[in-house]
């Protein structure tokens, strides 16, 4: 039984880790400019358009075609709702760098908070906070998330990553019947709609996975959450339906293409320091956690819990969807709507990001398992190494970008 003093010391340590995580993931915003590259130009164009709209009394829920042209041209389905804050900031300050910094600060801290919430609910039954901290650590320093935030500078997806943990927190509440049902449903719906306004692909995947889990687990209330979320995202759903089935395709001008060449190759899942074709791997920390899990299963004969198995299966399924050999081209042949829908994905790599989210749970559980190993040296060393690896790699990834990417001339 832990004493109050021991508990306080533990909490302080965990707080220090959260602060370290915060510092590591915010590293690139302390430079005296905005790193170029990715679709940063599109984001700035969006923010400027919004600010101009505010000035003239217009509200652009979705970006114009000219604004989209500044980026990859395929983000027409992602709304501007989450860019209202930077829009207002820019309108007020006319300082893009400040706007960018504040926006990233809010998003990264929001992600941290949401991740803490989610992992607290997932590991609520554990006797220590260690898996929560490691879950948050793995989620926050996930190389794919860092890639989205600073390399690709896709803030729609970055925002979706902020809302995903909140959504999962609420859905887990519904599934495990924790807390009152109606607030859970309401939060899940809000979060899902928020994800939809941020990035429609994440909305579709999150809703699809929830429906599947609800079906298999016979938890019918999850459908209510999805339906409510869909309802709140009605403008986006309307735009999506128009794009897929009505004449909206021509207006949006989004390209139709095969996405299979953009998929991951198996070996790319395991990269840490460098990657090609915009395919970051799982990173050192996650690799160590996966190895720890395999070790516990194979050498120690420990059986994975049912929840962990579900997360692992989801992770494997999503990872398979992200592979370049997954036949998306055949899926596209189902009809015009399938062709447009798959093109909307832009790259199967998004599924690897989602697979990483799912993998964080069993990985954090594995670290917890190792920390209870009878070999005390190993029990103390491995979580420490994982922590250093996660933070170190995150700092490395950010530093490399900061060194290689010149600042934008604004």
């Amino acid at each position: 039984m832990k004493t109050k003093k021991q508990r306080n010391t533990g909490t302080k340590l965990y707080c220090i880790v959260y602060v370290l995580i915060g510092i590591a993931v915010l590293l690139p915003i302390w430079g005296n400019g905005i790193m170029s590259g990715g679709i940063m130009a599109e984001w700035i164009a969006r923010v400027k358009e919004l600010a101009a709209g505010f000035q003239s009394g217009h509200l652009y829920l979705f970006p114009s075609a000219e604004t989209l042209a500044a980026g990859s041209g395929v983000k027409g389905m992602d709304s501007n709702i989450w860019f209202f804050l930077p829009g207002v900031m820019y309108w007020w300050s006319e300082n893009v760098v400040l706007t960018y910094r504040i926006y990233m600060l809010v998003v990264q801290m929001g992600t941290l908070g949401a991740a803490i919430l989610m992992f607290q609910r997932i590991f609520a039954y554990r006797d220590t906070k260690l898996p929560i901290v490691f879950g948050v650590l793995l989620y926050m320093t996930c190389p794919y998330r860092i890639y989205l935030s600073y390399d690709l500078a896709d803030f729609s997806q970055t925002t979706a990553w902020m809302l995903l943990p909140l959504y999962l927190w609420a859905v887990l509440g519904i599934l495990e019947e924790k807390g009152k049902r109606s607030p859970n449903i309401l939060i899940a719906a809000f979060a899902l709609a928020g994800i939809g306004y941020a990035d429609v692909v994440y909305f579709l995947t999150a809703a699809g996975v929830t429906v599947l889990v609800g079906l298999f687990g016979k938890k019918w209330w999850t459908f209510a959450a999805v339906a409510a979320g869909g309802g709140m995202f009605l403008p986006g759903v309307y735009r999506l339906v128009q794009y897929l089935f009505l004449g909206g395709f021509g207006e949006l001008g989004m390209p139709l293409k095969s996405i299979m060449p953009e998929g991951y190759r198996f070996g790319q899942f395991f990269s840490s320091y460098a990657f090609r074709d915009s395919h970051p791997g799982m990173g050192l920390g996650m690799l160590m956690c996966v190895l720890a899990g395999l070790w516990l299963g194979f050498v120690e004969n420990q059986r994975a819990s049912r929840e962990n198995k579900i997360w692992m299966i989801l992770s494997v399924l999503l990872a398979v969807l992200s592979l370049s050999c997954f036949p998306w081209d055949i899926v596209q042949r189902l009809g015009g709507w399938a062709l447009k829908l798959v093109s909307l994905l832009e790259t199967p790599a998004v599924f690897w990001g989602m697979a990483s989210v799912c993998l964080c749970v069993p990985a954090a559980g594995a670290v917890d398992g190792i920390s209870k190993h009878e070999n005390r040296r190993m029990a103390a060393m491995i979580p420490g190494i994982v922590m250093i690896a996660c933070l170190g790699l995150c700092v490395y990834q950010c530093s490399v970008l900061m060194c290689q990417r010149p600042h934008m001339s604004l």
Partner: protein
Amino acid sequence: MNIWHRIYELKVWTKKPFCITIAVCSLLILFCLIKIGIPCEVWEYECKGGLDFTEGSSGGDIVVCDGICLKPGVYRIELAYDTDTDLVALCNVADGTVFYKGLLSNGEHMYSGLHRTGYDMWLYESTQDLQVIVPYGGEGSLEIGNVRIIETNQLWTMLLTGVLFMGIAVCAAQIFYYYDNHFHVAPHKKQVFFWVMVISFIASIPYLCGYTITGADLTYHLQRIEGVKDGLLGGQFPVRLEPKWVYDHGYANAIFYCNGLLYLPALLRLLGFPVITSYNIYCVVLTIATAWISYYCFSRIFHKCSIGIICSALYTLSVFRIYKLIIATAVGEGTAVTFIPLVLYGFYQILAGNPEEKGYKRSWVPLAIGLSGLIQSHVLTCEITAMVMLLFCIIYVRKIFNRKVFYVLLKCAIVTICVNLWFLVPFLDYYLTQDMHIKNVSARTIQDRGLDWMQLPFYFDIAPSETNGIQDAHPVGVGPVLCIALGIFLLLWFAGRFRKSDRKNLPVTKEAAFTKTASVVGLLLMFMSLEIFPWDRIQGMNTVMATLVSSLQFPNRFLGWGTACLVLVFGFCAWYFEEHGRESCYWLLMAAAVLGIIISNMYILDRVNGEQVYFELYNEEGMGAGYISGAEYLIEGTDWEKLTFADAVPGQGVEILEYQKEYLRAMLQCANEGGTDSYVELPMLLYKGYRAVCVETGQEMELCAGDNNVIRVMIPGGFEGNIQVDFVSPVYWRLSELVSVLAVMVLAVMWWRYQGKALYEKSRADIRNPQHT
């Protein structure tokens, strides 16, 4: 009870999942066999009219024929053509209707000396709109004929191989699962398996990406694999001359550069796997073998699994191995790295072992296997190994003249020679009796290719070129961990910790004595890899030294052995700390090793995989057939730049009525209408072993070197008939092969008997001492 009895006792055939696996595999195998049994078809397509282009005409992507309907399979595309240029036009296939990578082919370039393409394509989805296209830029004339598409059953042989492999893997995993549940496999065994496989997996990641990282030597080694495949298809076994290399002229690479281990990827190629798939599988197998062999050797030396594992990680993920096998794609040298630990372990057993011990007389086995592996993979590493052996022998000179030690060494030498005689005899035959270019490269200096000493401990960066000095240099070194271990060892040594008067009063162990030697040898080898080592002076001493030094090409080759010696030193330091109760030092060293592997070795591996240029090659024709690196195995005086695909060339008065060439065999129908002797020159290089026979009379025809050392068949005046030119291995080569086969068989029988005897003794011991069981 031995393991097979235990597995039998499990009665796995009564378990439902196992039965399901067997049933599924059997059905798939049956399906593949039926598919393989169905006769293959051939389709002829007439080309669209007007496909004759003269110099300067605009071509673009010429569609030779389209709308071709095919089922999934592996097909051979033959397009008849005539052109007056080489490597300008390319024949390929295209299909916009199949899914991404549903059609794999790199096509084939067109040559003035060839009149028909013959390349493979892999089609994984049914199509109704396959096109045969020829991108043509208007350079030279081009006349395109008809297309032939030949179906092969290789898709099904590939699938069958995959099913068999996966089936065996799944069944083995299931049997292990039941076995572990029933008999409880010892945790340390599972631990070893787990870690060695993790090391293998991490080191194999670049080969699991579906592409191949390109290094300077990749094409050359892919040509070697294709050479073995083509040689086997041409009826040679073992393969001596690669028949299609050097534009169908044949190349004596296999005589000088043993390809014994390349039969695996060549076999995969024969089964239908694309070029890079076969290569990647081979490299994965090699990596797994390296991890297991190094684990075996180092754990045996130090009698500790944990030290074996960490040494295996340091060795398998060593910078030298990454550099050779992945960055430079020096597959031969990378393969040799696999066997160096076995040789080191063999030295240890023979030189550090006690000749009076019971098992001593069998201590030649690892050394013989290791040396055989080296001979089979890389001759230059053998040269370096011979030098290292000499150094060890000098240091252990007193021990060598012990009768038992000498007997074991002699046995090792005899066995190694006998097992490898099939390669050594042709090698020496050609080297001693033929004027090969390799014998005339002694002017090439190597000292300027040496390393800066700062490169030895640091290895964090990669660069596109290899230069002197540390700037922009490749990561060639041994790395900080091994340097630290060497430093610690030397510190302990000079502090007198290995003396008998050690304060712990522990005796001098054979491990310490052997590691001292290894550290000295390691230091010397590191020194030899540097640019300050006087290679140029040694080269200038005499012709023998000049040839030997020049053939080394790169002084960094010494770091292969250097790495092995330093890994041994690392293992010893860890072992020493553990044995002497210095737990904190032991753990610090282990932590340094793990840290070094994570931030340095894995870093290089990742950066190479993420940033170095790669390519995806499916059919061999896509890489051409002309690259021969330094052209070392050509006959001296051959100008390889003049060699290209060609027809037979008749001498004055000779008319060639018919000519056919396949692999190393040429059939010729000709007539010499003149009264004097004349000749026909064939597009084949005149290596020792070729024979020309008149088919009608059986009379042997005279062969001599023609223009640029091609085969010139002398045709007597008034001759008319058929001549067959063929490569036939001399009888003494065949005898050497027989000796090797017999040696391997004798060794196998001996091993079998030894296993039986060991099992018998173990069971008797179990009966005597059941509690122990």
